[in-house]
């Protein structure tokens, strides 16, 4: 007996799949399944988070609906995955944010933006808010650098702490002792698998979306989004180093590293989310967890808005719009950080942890087979 109905269904499907095994070459889920004969809640949560939702196993399955065996692995694991996010949420009191995720995140975002605008307006007179500021330190006329660093540093640290607690809960649930995360080879393998989205390719042809014709578009858009996000993050890090090590204050000229990184990343982070959203829209509803539409859209929208407001700020930073745009951008980024542990962002974290586990298991199996 399992804790939830969806895990009961996942168990039923894994029993069907384990007596078939035709899909074993498609991704990591089925080889991991084959290492087991029975499935605990933790095993099923592990498999659910290992699944990249490419949809190939549904299209390839001779027992998918309308067959009476009714095998729909992508959707079942998508629901189980989403339920696992709530189960691992820290603090527990916030687990409920996953249920109405789109609404919660929109509210947090709106409140954050409002708070920054209100804060700027309250602290300064209108000339400062709508004034034209140029040259190093221009942004800090609106909000002192130290205040900005303290606020975002705290938000960021909170997100890291909450995510770490979630991963801890996941790692325990799937049965890996805490101390076993230090396997360097498994980590490297997982970084490579996640970095290239190895298991989002339907075994080589691309994933399945609106019909039975596979394409690689989702992987492309995800790469644009993820690497765009990474470049934007790198831009922030470089800027922080400039500030503290070189005493060079933002805004930086367009050719300088933080701006170049941020611009390239920002473009990726504009195109990627639009593409992902369009693909999400078109996707055959049989493959997805319809109830979690809001969670997917909210996260994609937040990433898009982060980039859009950042790019707008870059283009209009020497005009009177700079003040309001800075408030908007900071508000969006702040809410992105504080809602990270309670939205779709966590999918990457748990999937990565599952990939680490899979890399370890596969190595253990290979060694076992060699003996």
């Amino acid at each position: 007996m399992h804790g939830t109905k969806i895990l009961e269904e996942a168990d039923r499907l894994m029993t069907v799949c384990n007596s078939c095994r035709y899909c074993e070459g498609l991704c990591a889920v089925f080889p991991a399944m084959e290492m087991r004969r029975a499935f605990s809640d933790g095993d099923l949560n592990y498999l659910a988070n290992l699944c990249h939702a490419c949809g190939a196993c549904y299209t390839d399955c001779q027992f998918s609906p309308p067959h009476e065996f009714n095998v729909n692995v992508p959707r079942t694991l998508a629901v189980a995955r989403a339920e696992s996010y709530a189960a691992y949420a820290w603090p527990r009191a916030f687990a409920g944010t996953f249920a109405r995720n789109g609404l919660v995140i929109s509210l947090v975002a709106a409140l954050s933006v409002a708070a920054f605008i209100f804060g700027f307006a309250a602290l300064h007179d209108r000339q400062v808010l709508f004034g034209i500021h140029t040259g190093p330190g221009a942004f800090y006329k609106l909000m002192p650098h130290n205040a900005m660093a303290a606020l975002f540093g705290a938000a960021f640290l909170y997100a890291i702490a909450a995510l770490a607690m979630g991963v801890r809960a996941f790692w325990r649930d799937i049965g890996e002792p805490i101390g076993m995360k230090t396997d360097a080879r498994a980590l490297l393998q997982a970084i490579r698998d996640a970095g290239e989205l190895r298991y989002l390719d339907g075994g080589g042809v691309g994933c399945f979306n609106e019909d039975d014709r596979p394409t690689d578009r989702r992987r492309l858009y995800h790469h644009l989004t993820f690497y765009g996000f990474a470049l934007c993050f790198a831009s922030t890090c470089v800027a922080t180093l400039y500030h503290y090590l070189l005493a060079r204050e933002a805004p930086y000229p367009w050719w300088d590293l933080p701006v170049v990184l941020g611009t390239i990343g920002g473009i990726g982070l504009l195109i990627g989310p639009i593409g992902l959203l369009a693909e999400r829209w078109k996707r055959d509803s049989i493959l997805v967890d319809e109830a979690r539409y809001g969670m997917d859209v909210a996260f994609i929208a937040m990433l898009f808005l982060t980039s859009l407001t950042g790019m707008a700020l870059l283009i209009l930073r020497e005009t009177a719009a700079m003040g309001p745009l800075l408030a908007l951008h900071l508000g969006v980024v702040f809410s992105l950080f504080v809602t990270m542990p309670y939205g779709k962002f966590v999918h990457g974290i748990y999937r990565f942890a599952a990939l680490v586990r899979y890399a370890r298991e596969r190595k253990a199996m290979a060694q076992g087979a060699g003996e």
Partner: protein
Amino acid sequence: MADLTVKFDVLVIGGGNAALCAAISARRAGASVLVLEGAPKFYRGGNTRHTRNMRCAHDAATDILTGPYTEEEFWDDLLRLTGGQTDEELAKFMIRESKDILNWIVEQGVRWQPSLGGTLSLGRTNSFFLGGGRAMLNALYLTAEKLGVEIVYDAEVIDLDIEHGMFLSAKLKQPIDGTSEIRASALVAAAGGFEANIEWLKEYWGEAADNFLIRGTPYNRGSILKMLLDKGVQDIGDPTQCHAVAIDARAPKFDGGIITRHDSVVFGIVVNKHARRFYDEGEDIWPKRYAIWGRLVAAQPDQIAYIIFDASVRNSFMPTLFPPIEGGSIAELAAKLELDPAALEKTIAEFNAAVKPGTFDHTILDDCRTEGITPPKTHWARRIETPPYLAYPVRPGITFTYLGTRVNRQARMVMKDGKPSANMFAAGEIMAGNVLGKGYAAGIGMTIGSVFGRVAGREAAKNARN
């Protein structure tokens, strides 16, 4: 939607591996091609849905095959498993052509799975479809559609107009856009056998056929085969022969596919409804003897049998779809199976007493055997004595039938008078009996389908042009 009022160069009836290979090869040869699949889209492809691999000759190991499998070895295997009931010329032709199929099928979009060296001992001889048979079918359909092959589903053909061995038209049960008569210059029949046609099976098996389970879709009714044989095409193959394995008695009547099979026979004993053993469970290595148990169970009263084993071997074989039925004692298990407890206890006690000491090794013909009972268990015999006692109820699961249409090397049908048909070709299960008089080895059905499908399509296109 295709305009069905025009005359096509090539009409393909059927929708599995052979049909699609024929359609693609005819289209690539420049013909206009229509495929009529009798099943709805989800169930397209007949038994191909449930396949997983293909047996092709090759001279060296590759990414997907662990070692060479020469034409000679393939021929030796075929000769042995059919007991010589094969058309040597056709069989050798097929084996030669199979070498090129490994690449040709990839050019049609099908992907092979890298050899895993895992669950099945076929890594050297057989190539596995990545994602299984339905993935293979999906790839073939996508390629056919891209090439401009017209495909219609739910298109059941109820009559063929054939004059003096020449195909003229096919009649549809349900008109499509007002058209029910499909004309074509050449016909490729690739519509499979009659395994899902219980009434037809009864002609050879009697009422026992009511207890058969059919491993594929309910659409494999053999109606095209019957029309062709009724209209002068020469038959081949033993109509009573079919590929049948023991599958779980709890499986659905149709389309349970691969996952209802049991490969646990060698780990226990098999009894009939009178709780008596009836055949040597340890005769030969799995999977060589995989395919005999369907027929053995079919010969038992009520076509039911029970694989009985104990907790010590529970995890010795692949996990099963249906869990084993459990009993804390043999009597309790017998009661759950509705067998006579005393009879089952007696059978197991006699068996246990007859087991001789030996060293168990399921990978070879080991020395664990019985002495002094009939039938003996000649290998892997170990006492059944560790509770809980476990059982799988099994029935005959019919995979496919062997009766077919005779063809020549062009895959061209041969008429009863021995003359080749003017424009009719056959590929796949509907003509498998030419190569496989009896017996079976994994993946041969797909080899027959792809090789003869490709040939039939090419020849039909050539025929249509002349």
